[in-house]
């Protein structure tokens, strides 16, 4: 290992990388576009969802209920004259939620506020969901029920009196770290994992193959440069660009999306920088073991699909079957995304995250070691 040789290699890579406008555009544009798009994708604040309403009761109470549903901006009620029309709209997908208010709705209300024995003939509404849109239905359900029960409580001036038949514990929920259950911070912190796993691997995956096809890699190997120096020369300049990307994404995420890291910024950047080295090494392995650039990229893409879907970026890992959950632990991205969410969203420090950090270091040692061997083997 000689600093002089390494410096020369670094200069060579930097010139080659920074001079290529296509690569530089991708390196800067992709993280930012990914951040802005993904940041906005998952908003749990449901807005303006088409809600089909068939109001057979057409009473002050039912109109009040519909008006309350519209008021929050969550639902856009659309009246349907008949139940058949409503069901047709649901089948064709024009609406994904439908509310049916039966003719005796108002009458039941009169009784509910009277001295009726509790538990009998509560006023009833029917809600139909398009279960095909499972996520949507699951979330619309929560909104709709809370709105309906709030209106119901307001309509029944005197709550049902007498002993409540002894059911029900009032559950007061509050969300820590993100009280409004806003989706943006979740996606922003995950996007770091996505960009730093995927873009890094993809960029390095083509680097060695391209050089080999151009014949410059053989030239490199006959120089006195050792494998370690070649490896470092390859990954350090890109590492610098990605470290810059991390800072850039943090600033844009903060200024545009209003999501600043809760934890220590320096800690986050250094964890990210280390993770960049890990995934750059992975890209080098793909690159060194492929014959053509297209093959290297195909490998990366095949690898990246489970990465998006299994690493916890898009789907919670705990919902998966047990064996798959074990497999996800083998992806470095899983651990990095867990770390970045913990630091970014919950402000966790190094001590609480020690096990995850250990995993990341372990992966780093294995992958960088293996990358070295593949480079040496070709020499």
């Amino acid at each position, binding site marked *: 290992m000689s600093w002089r040789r390494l410096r020369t290699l670094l200069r060579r890579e930097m010139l080659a990388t920074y001079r290529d406008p296509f690569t530089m555009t991708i390196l800067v544009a992709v993280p930012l576009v990914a951040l802005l798009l993904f940041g906005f994708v998952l908003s749990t604040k449901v807005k303006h969802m088409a809600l089909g309403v068939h109001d057979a009761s057409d009473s002050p109470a039912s109109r009040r209920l519909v008006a309350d549903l519209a008021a929050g901006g969550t639902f856009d009620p659309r009246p349907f004259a008949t139940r058949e029309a409503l069901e047709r709209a649901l089948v064709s997908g024009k609406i994904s939620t439908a509310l049916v208010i039966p003719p005796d709705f108002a009458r039941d209300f009169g009784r509910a506020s009277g001295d009726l024995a509790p538990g009998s003939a509560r006023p009833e509404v029917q*809600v139909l969901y398009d279960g095909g849109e499972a996520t949507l239905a*699951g979330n619309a359900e929560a909104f709709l029920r809370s709105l309906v029960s709030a209106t119901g409580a307001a*309509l029944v001036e005197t709550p049902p009196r007498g002993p409540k038949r002894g059911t029900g514990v009032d*559950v007061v929920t509050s969300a820590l770290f993100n009280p409004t259950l806003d*989706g943006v911070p979740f996606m922003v912190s995950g996007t770091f994992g996505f960009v730093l796993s995927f873009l890094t691997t*993809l960029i390095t995956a083509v680097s060695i193959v391209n050089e080999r096809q151009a014949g410059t890699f053989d030239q490199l190997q006959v120089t006195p440069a050792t494998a370690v120096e070649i490896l470092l020369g390859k990954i350090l300049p890109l590492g610098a660009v990605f470290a810059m990307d991390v800072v850039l994404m943090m600033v844009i995420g903060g200024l545009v999306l209003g999501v600043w890291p809760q934890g220590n910024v320096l800690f986050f950047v250094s964890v990210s920088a280390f993770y960049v080295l890990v995934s750059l090494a992975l890209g080098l392995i793909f690159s060194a073991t492929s014959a053509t650039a297209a093959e290297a990229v195909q490998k990366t893409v095949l690898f990246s699909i489970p990465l998006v*879907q299994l690493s916890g970026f898009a789907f919670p890992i705990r919902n998966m079957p047990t064996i798959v959950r074990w497999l996800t632990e083998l992806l470095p991205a899983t651990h990095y995304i867990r770390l970045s969410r913990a630091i970014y969203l919950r402000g966790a420090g190094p001590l609480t995250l020690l096990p995850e950090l250990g995993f990341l270091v372990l992966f780093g040692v294995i992958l960088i070691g293996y990358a070295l061997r593949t480079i040496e083997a070709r020499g």
Partner: protein
Amino acid sequence: MTRRRGRFWSNAMAVAYKETRILRHDRAFIGVVVAQPIMMLILQGVVLSNKPANVPWAVLDWSRSEVARRFVTEVEATGYFLPPRPVASYEEGRQLLRRGDALAFVVIPRDLARDVERQEPRVQVLLDGSDPLSAARVGGYIAEVGAALDLGTDHVEDRRPQRPRVPVRGPGPIDVRQRFWFNPTLADRRFFLSALAGMLLTNLCLSVMSLGLVGERENGTYEQMLALPTSSLEIVIGKVAPYVAVSYVLAFVSTVAAGAIFGVWPRGSWVTLAIATLPFVLASLAIGVFVSALARTSAQAVFIAVFFILPSFILSGVIYPYQFMPPGVREVGGLFPLRWYQIALRRIIERGAGLVDVAGPMLALTLLFGVLLLGIRWRMKPRLG
């Protein structure tokens, strides 16, 4: 005129024949056609789910009462939760939340038993809001259990914990009777698998097609083709035709596999499905051709293709419902053919919709295809060097 048209088709077919011969030896292509569908089928059918499962949670029980124990048992009995982790202090529970070792933290106050007598029992639940979708649902489940909890002290009857997978009746003054159509258990599997063909075709059309023209240009065979008496339109048609055929095979196989393995058979007709697939395949292939015309090297082409595929998965609504997206992003997603195709697929496969119901998405796809054709024409002027 007829003579010219005859030559047009024979030229296009000659290019198509050449293209098919090459395809059989293309390893990357075989990877896309064989490995990816199997992987995606497993992922979409078995692995992915938005429905909470194995939720880690902690309980701080100050009251140590029978009601509290029953509440905890009932929450666990919903089947969404792991066995609860008892903690001794408030601080310890918050620490678990911070570390991500618990998603929910239930705090049961000291006087719960007394509050039951007074008719206002109350427990506190702290959720890890950093994962908002899960948090919202988990909070909902716990509240649901709480609302349905039987507090009657003289109940001795054997109440087996049931799994209220889809709560039918809710608490509150208005009785909300709800039904989930098309997918009564809200199984995510139906949701994901019905869009499977769309994801596979996007992958296939873009990643393979985008390499097509660039590869020829790099190898110098594009110049050879230009020297032939074939027009650029004939070349494009000849290159595209085999992929249309492969796309149909892939769509058919993946739909049959989703049905045979996971029981998600289309409720609509196969003919509707086949007709709706055509504009999507054409639009996706056109994007591939466009990318190919845009890129200088095959590495660039793959880059552009990949950075088109991934956002289209996320923005089109195959993973997250597009109805959740805010206005601006929703429209951006509309630029991806996959958005319209997945709408059509879900209508046909899940709701059994007919051709009339998917006319809108098909029109959008045809429109996209037309715009892309213009773009290709503008970009594909024969050029050398």
